[in-house]
């Protein structure tokens, strides 16, 4: 198959039409003249069709799940069901203000309540809040809860350390540090937490250990029960990063593994679209110790009525405006309802089957670190390519030319020239075979072609070094910068 992405020579919006004359904006009666905009907003005046064409053309220069397989590791890029889009756009979902009286939003509160109950069962943790807007936001909120918990126990002065494995997502240490903790990495052994290292690292300074299971090497941390015991014996709490929950749905859950608190990414496991970078939804689930600290309001059922409960004296309060990304909660509810018990379990089975099947096949082309049995994702190392002067980056770019997206690259850092591949359950065997063939074509191509890739996309290889060294971050910068287009 020969792939060609659209290659429009589409100007920037402001090069399509002029901005209006820069006279003052209209005066508003009662508003002091000093407050009035002296120059009308500088932005092009366009007709609707010009705007529509511009963004339609731009959209044609973008990969999405609907255009191609998207095997980014730890991102769980599964099909986003169309029925979810349909329902989330209903007036009864989209046209609701969060400050409407409770009596007028009973359905929204009930949907929230029902989704929370489902997620509580999926995580094995009794209390759930849908307030966080994204995974990292959920991590951060959970760490604020950890903080409040130790403050109430009079241990906060001492318990200042968050432990995490060296395979942790970057958001983990960043969230911990925003929440006022210091972080310490536990080295891995064969891709998993080195239990002995953890045992010697925990102490009465440990606030919590943050763990993704399966981890970012795609391995299930089989020592999890010992890990939990180690952390708890030291008086610390165990935090579950739910980015990789897809692999274990219905087989195990954070509650059974001994976690005290978890965040889930509805935009991964529950198939809500990622919007080209967001929105997400970063559900919090908490065990008994931390549940009283969840953000307010909580949705409660009294008789047949649903209401927002603000009477949680130990709550950390608010972490965003309103109650969460409700539009995504509707989609996640549709997903959970459609699959049900058996369906969710099958999601995990098929995701893990896909991952192992593709790993075995791609493992013929590149070495796979660590053990063979993986969960939802697997790692490859691009080191053998170096003999040919080729890097993982070149392979990733060459894959784009095949019309498929590249895996996550250069993460986790413990594997040199890493590729992290995740093909969720919604990809068929045919698609996996197709991806494998594309991968083999790419890797067997000449060094010259790999270096020159991509050739079939809207642009050739992008100069990221120049972008960082001479930042042009807006139209305003373009106006003051020298001409950006040069001939090489």
């Amino acid at each position, binding site marked *: 198959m020969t792939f060609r992405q659209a290659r429009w020579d589409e100007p920037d919006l402001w090069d399509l039409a002029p901005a209006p004359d820069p006279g003052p904006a209209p005066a508003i009666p009662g508003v002091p003249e000093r407050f009035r905009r002296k120059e009308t907003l500088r932005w092009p005046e366009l007709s609707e069709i010009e705007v529509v064409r511009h963004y339609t053309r731009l959209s044609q220069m973008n990969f999405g799940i609907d255009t191609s397989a998207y095997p980014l590791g730890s991102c769980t890029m599964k099909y986003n069901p169309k029925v979810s889009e349909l329902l989330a756009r209903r007036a009864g979902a989209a046209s609701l203000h969060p400050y409407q009286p409770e009596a007028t939003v009973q359905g929204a509160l009930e949907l929230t309540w029902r989704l929370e109950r489902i997620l509580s069962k999926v995580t094995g943790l009794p209390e759930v809040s849908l307030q966080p807007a994204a995974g990292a936001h959920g991590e951060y909120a959970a760490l604020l809860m950890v903080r409040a918990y130790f403050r109430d126990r009079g241990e906060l002065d001492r318990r200042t350390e968050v432990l995490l494995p060296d395979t942790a997502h970057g958001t983990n240490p960043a969230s911990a540090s925003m929440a006022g903790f210091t972080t310490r990495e536990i080295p891995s052994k064969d891709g998993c937490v080195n239990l002995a290292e953890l045992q010697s690292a925990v102490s009465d300074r440990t606030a919590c250990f943050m763990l993704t299971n399966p981890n970012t090497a795609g391995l299930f941390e089989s020592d999890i029960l010992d890990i939990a015991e180690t952390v708890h014996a030291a008086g610390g709490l165990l935090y579950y990063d739910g980015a990789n929950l897809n692999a274990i749905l219905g087989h195990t859950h954070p509650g059974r593994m001994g976690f005290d608190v978890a965040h889930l990414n509805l935009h991964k496991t529950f198939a809500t679209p990622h919007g080209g970078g967001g*929105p997400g939804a970063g559900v919090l689930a908490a065990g008994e110790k931390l549940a009283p600290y969840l953000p307010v309001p909580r949705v409660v059922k009294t008789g047949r009525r649903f209401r927002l409960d603000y009477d949680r004296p130990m709550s950390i309060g608010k972490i965003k405006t309103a109650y969460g990304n409700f539009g995504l909660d509707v989609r996640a509810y549709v997903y959970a309802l459609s699959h049900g018990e058996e*369906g969710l379990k099958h999601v995990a089975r098929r995701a893990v089957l896909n991952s192992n099947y593709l790993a075995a096949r791609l493992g013929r082309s590149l070495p796979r670190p660590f053990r063979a049995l993986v969960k939802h994702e697997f790692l490859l190392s691009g080191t053998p390519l170096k003999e040919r002067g080729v890097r993982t980056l070149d392979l990733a770019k060459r894959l784009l030319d095949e019309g498929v997206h590249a895996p996550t690259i250069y993460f986790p850092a413990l594997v040199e020239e890493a590729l992290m591949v995740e093909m969720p359950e919604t990809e068929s065997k045919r698609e996996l075979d197709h991806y494998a063939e594309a991968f083999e074509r790419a890797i067997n191509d000449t060094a010259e072609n790999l270096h020159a890739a991509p050739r079939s996309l809207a642009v050739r290889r992008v100069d990221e070094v120049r972008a960082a060294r001479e930042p042009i971050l807006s139209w305003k910068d373009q106006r003051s910068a020298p001409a950006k287009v040069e001939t090489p």
Partner: protein
Amino acid sequence: MPRWISNEPGEEAAMLESLGIASLDELFRDIPKKARIGRLGIGGGREEPDVVREVDRLLDRNRPLTKFATFLGGRISHRYIPAAVDAIVSRSEFYTAYTPYQPEASQGMLRTLFEFQSLWVELTGLDLANASLYDGATAGGEALLFCRRIHEGHRFLVPASLPWEERSVLSNYASGPGLRVEEVPYDPRTGNLDLEFVRKAIAAKDVFGVLADVPNGFGHLDEGVLDLKSMLGDVPLVVSADPLSLSVLEPPGAYGADVVIGEGQGFGASPSFGGPLLGLFACRREHSRQAPGRIVGSTVDLEGRPACTLTLQTREQHIRRSRAMSNICTNESLMALAFVVYASTVGPRGLAALQSSLAEKARTLASALGGIDGLQAPRFDAPYLGEFTIELTHGTTAGFLDRLRRRRILGGHALADPRPGAPKEAERILVAATDAVGEKEIQKYAAAAKAWAAAGGRA
């Protein structure tokens, strides 16, 4: 089982065979027995028509804003969205994409975000914007941490009139590094910031940032904000601005703001019961490497053709880990797309005309409510655009709003912190003119308020 997973006969068997294993369960042998679970207890799956019926049953129990004369506002707006905006936002090349890690495959979203950043720069008069944060409140939290990175101190000043949710979010963001959020009192007549309080706090040398909102939490414009920077010196000024107001108001960069944040949902996104929203953030060039969130830059490709990419990434969590400027990974890119498509469809003059028209409706409403017994509208003697605060001198906000609701009017929202134990506040309601109301709805509001007054302020 939904059709979202391939179930071609023989497919799974062939895959298992190639792996040399007999059953799917063998793939889970690495989960210790003691960690396994039985049934979840969430019921069986359902076919698509059944799911649609069930979810519609729930959604039909809601009464959408379109069924009411709606005067609800605050940071979240009920505003008409041109069909063209939804058409673009619904393009699945955009909405089913991930964060644009591979720029060559993602020029559509990257260029859109570059245009979005450019628009927020033009609206605010600052130098650079990021590619979005979660919402206006968390943008405030990020702004607080940003200020601490560029200035020493422990105290962050915010108006006491700031919506309680935002004060709570800010306190959370401040708690990690042990910083303090302090409320600046307001003049009881105008709602304006007590500038003398600010002056004294600054003189004490421990303030690392000051936040002011335009319009403020009461919906009013505080002229003192225009002079605030001159009293702050090098202490950073954060202005939280309503994007639509910036079509007619001076860009905050022109009166010294170092950071401008805002809530962008009102540009092209539905209120959706409060989310997804859109956090806006802009700052000055010299602080570009301290800014939180994704940033898109313009550069060239191998052939010298213009291209965009995520840039200045050494600030971010995936590189800098515990020393990152922020933990932001997922943001609100699709809402940023809606924002720039909305503004471009309506156009710069159209935005100003919309703001003028909302302001006119608000004035009409204020005069229709003026002189009604038991309420003061507007409560504060200060200029306003499309929103203002009313205060009840007897009765309760709950009773007032409930009476209006029974007449199919959503009359605004109570400003008080609803948490038990929160300090007792006056019975105040923020009222917003929306583009869905006209003269008829305004008179209906006034009639309902009069009936409430005639009943002695009883629901």
